[in-house]
């Protein structure tokens, strides 16, 4: 499999309450081994997945939020967050955890880009494979 495709993982659900966010992340991590051109999109309640300082002890489920911060180690460097989804939920960029990756000069650079809905549509249209969770 030498051909590279553009994969977009679309995350639309809150991190807890359903298993979609966790199992989406599992696909992303496994998929990293296939060396494809990977992007993640966060929209609707999916923007809650990236909110910082999540604590799950009260609900007795695994806190997988730290995994997002490790995505750079898996060569997953493009995380797009929809601005309107943040605003509709009273969130700003400051509410999101800091997620970085190393660039070619070994500097830590931001992986998260806030984009508006129209830009998100363009990003989706440019993909070969869109997996929606």
């Amino acid at each position, binding site marked *: 499999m030498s051909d590279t495709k553009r994969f977009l993982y679309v995350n639309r659900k809150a991190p807890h309450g359903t*298993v979609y966010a966790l199992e989406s992340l599992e696909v992303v991590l496994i998929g990293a081994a296939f060396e494809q051109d990977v992007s993640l999109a966060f929209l609707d309640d999916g923007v809650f997945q990236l909110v910082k300082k999540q604590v799950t002890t009260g609900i007795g489920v695994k806190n997988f939020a730290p995994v997002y911060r490790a995505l750079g180690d898996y060569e997953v460097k493009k995380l797009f967050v929809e601005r309107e989804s943040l605003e509709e939920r009273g969130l700003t960029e400051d509410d999101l955890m800091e997620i970085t990756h190393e660039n070619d000069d070994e500097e830590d650079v931001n992986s998260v880009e806030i984009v508006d809905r129209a830009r998100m549509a363009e990003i989706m249209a440019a993909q070969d494979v869109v*997996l929606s969770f």
Partner: protein
Amino acid sequence: MKLAVVVNEGPYTHQASDTAYQFTRAALEKGHEIYRVFFYHDGVNNATRLTVPPQDERNVQKNWSELSEKHGLDMVVCIAAAQRRGILDDNEAKRHGKGEGAANLAPGFRISGLGQLIEAGIQADRLVVFGD
């Protein structure tokens, strides 16, 4: 066209599996190739042979199994999602000490890893996701 299908919801609660089945059947009848059907999230529950729906209702699992037998459809169930939800083949039932006869994977399905989903996305012309 070479298609891959992803089923993300279980039978009966959601329409997703039925719609995926109708889509897959229609595509095959039109002469398209289905590279793989991948079952993920609660979609793995489509693969249990133990469902017993009322006789005047469709049998979702049986529909899939029969379609697989007729067309040689490759139907893959994600192992991690399946183990969480108690879908086991003979090997997995044995490996986890679940006892004789515990395996419940229906005919036509096989259990494998998430890599099969990514590979399907790479190999197919279109990957079509059915979910909530």
